[in-house]
């Protein structure tokens, strides 16, 4: 082989030469996302790895997502047919297995559970309903996606529509878990939309909340929450796992791990040796999974799919999902306000969309604007954490009814 020849060959193997315009655009988008994550503080913990994964996946010929290639050969010695690896496949392909097989999201939930204090929910069981109401956002968006099918040019299958709807759950791991099972090709845009809107909750929610409530309602001061006993805290996760899984087996993985993490957290008060498991679940294990999950989810965003009208539709629908979820939550808050004779401040309803704990903080902030002496935060944490359970349940329903 001559020098010039092999140099030519080599230059053809360079990224530049093979670059498509989609890849160029995607790389640009990844830069924007990195900027938003670092400069604007958009959920940096996940958006930064996602954006970097997007960058890596759109570098031409890098093949970090490449599947391994095996061939079946006859063993010369034994004469048996044996698998033989021809190509090992790309790094991100292997790390992505944890998403594909539905392992990472439950593990993240394990850590979230180990960090979550369900006390406010246990102290005020009714507030759990607000966490249910906010899930309307998921289903109306789901319907919305199906309605878009009537627009020529856009077609969403039922599983795709379901995956888009779950953005309204305002819960990253749940969205990724469901989408990886129903519409993996949409993981990129859906994950980006979900985390971006979670970061935008403080901008999206207040106007809706104010539009739906009167100043009087916003001024309502709620009474102090009762203290919660150790026993309640420990029984709670076990109860939730059993009840939810018996009604909805398809939600067992997410809810089960969330509650195992929470059990580890609460049980440390009885058996302090469990502290080390709790710390690992909410610490190193979670960090490792976040790095792998973020990078590989981002790496699913290849230009061909990402740069389509669908993505714009997803972004639009995602915003609708958040807005409706917020709205229905507040409206339910108003209903509970009536029923309880003005004991419930409707503003805590918007926290039902989860996006823990930012949504709760928003309720607090809007409430304090109306009445500086008003302190809704702990009351809003109830619907807030209930929303996590609520969207996991909703995901379970979608999983069992929309997987084809």
């Amino acid at each position, binding site marked *: 082989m001559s020098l010039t020849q092999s140099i030519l060959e080599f230059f053809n193997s360079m990224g530049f030469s093979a670059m498509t315009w989609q890849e160029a655009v995607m790389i640009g988008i990844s830069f924007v996302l990195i900027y938003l994550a670092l400069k604007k503080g958009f959920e940096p913990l996940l958006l930064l790895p996602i954006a970097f994964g997007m960058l890596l996946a759109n570098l031409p010929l890098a093949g970090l997502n490449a599947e391994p290639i095996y061939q079946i050969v006859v063993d010369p010695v034994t004469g048996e047919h044996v698998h033989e690896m021809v190509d090992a496949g790309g790094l991100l392909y292997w790390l992505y297995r944890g998403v594909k097989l539905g392992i990472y999201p439950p593990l993240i939930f394990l850590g979230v559970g180990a960090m979550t204090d369900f006390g406010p*929910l*246990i102290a005020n*069981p*009714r507030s*759990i*309903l607000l*966490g*249910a109401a906010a*899930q*309307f956002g*998921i*289903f*109306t968006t*789901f*319907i919305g996606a*199906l*309605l878009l*099918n*009537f627009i020529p040019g856009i077609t969403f*299958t*039922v599983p795709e*529509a*379901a995956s888009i709807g779950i953005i309204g759950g305002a819960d990253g791991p749940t969205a990724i878990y469901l989408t990886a099972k129903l519409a993996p090709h949409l993981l990129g845009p859906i994950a980006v939309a979900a985390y971006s809107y979670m970061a935008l909750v403080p901008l999206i929610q207040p106007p809706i909340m104010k539009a739906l409530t009167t100043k009087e309602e916003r001024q309502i001061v709620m009474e102090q929450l009762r203290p*919660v*006993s*150790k*026993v*309640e805290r420990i*029984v*709670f996760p076990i*109860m*939730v796992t059993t*009840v*939810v899984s018996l*009604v*909805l087996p398809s939600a067992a993985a997410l809810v089960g791990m969330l509650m195992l993490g929470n059990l580890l957290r609460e049980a440390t*008060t*009885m058996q*302090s*040796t469990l*502290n*080390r498991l709790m710390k690992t679940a909410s610490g190193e294990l979670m960090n490792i999974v976040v790095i792998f999950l973020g990078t590989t989810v981002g790496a699913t965003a290849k230009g061909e799919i990402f740069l389509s009208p669908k993505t714009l539709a997803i972004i639009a629908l995602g915003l609708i999902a958040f807005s409706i979820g917020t709205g229905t939550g507040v409206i339910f808050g108003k209903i509970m306000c009536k029923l309880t004779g003005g004991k419930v401040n409707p503003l805590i309803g918007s926290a039902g969309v989860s996006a823990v704990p930012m949504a709760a903080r928003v309720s607090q902030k809007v409430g304090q604007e109306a009445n500086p002496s008003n302190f809704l935060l702990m009351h809003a944490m109830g619907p807030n954490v*209930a929303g996590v*359970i*609520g969207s996991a*349940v*909703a995901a*379970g*329903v*979608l999983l069992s*009814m*929309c997987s084809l």
Partner: protein
Amino acid sequence: MSEVQQLTYGLIVTLVGMGIVFLVLIGLSYMLDALKLLSNRGAAEKKAEAVKVERVEEPVEEPAEVVNVPEEDEGELVAVISAALAAFMGSSSNVVIKSINRVEGNTPVWAKVGRQEQMYNRF
């Protein structure tokens, strides 16, 4: 499926879905009421435990360091202990850390193993 079929199915899913969501969460909210009844007994136990736990933890956490880590980390340990001390007195009184003795130094063997137990018998 045609758009219309998809849509109708979507509406079914929505009805069932929101139905289940409310069913489950309302169910939980009433069970939590039931659970509260436990809490009264629970509350009683709680105090007892609270104390028990304190007792247990002291030997548990610190030695986890002592036994695990080589000498140079002992300092860290002492920092933690001394300040932990401060933490539990601190709120009421003034603290000036006067003298810190090396833990290894004046630890009776039995205590040392008492600590080892805390780690070993976890596996």
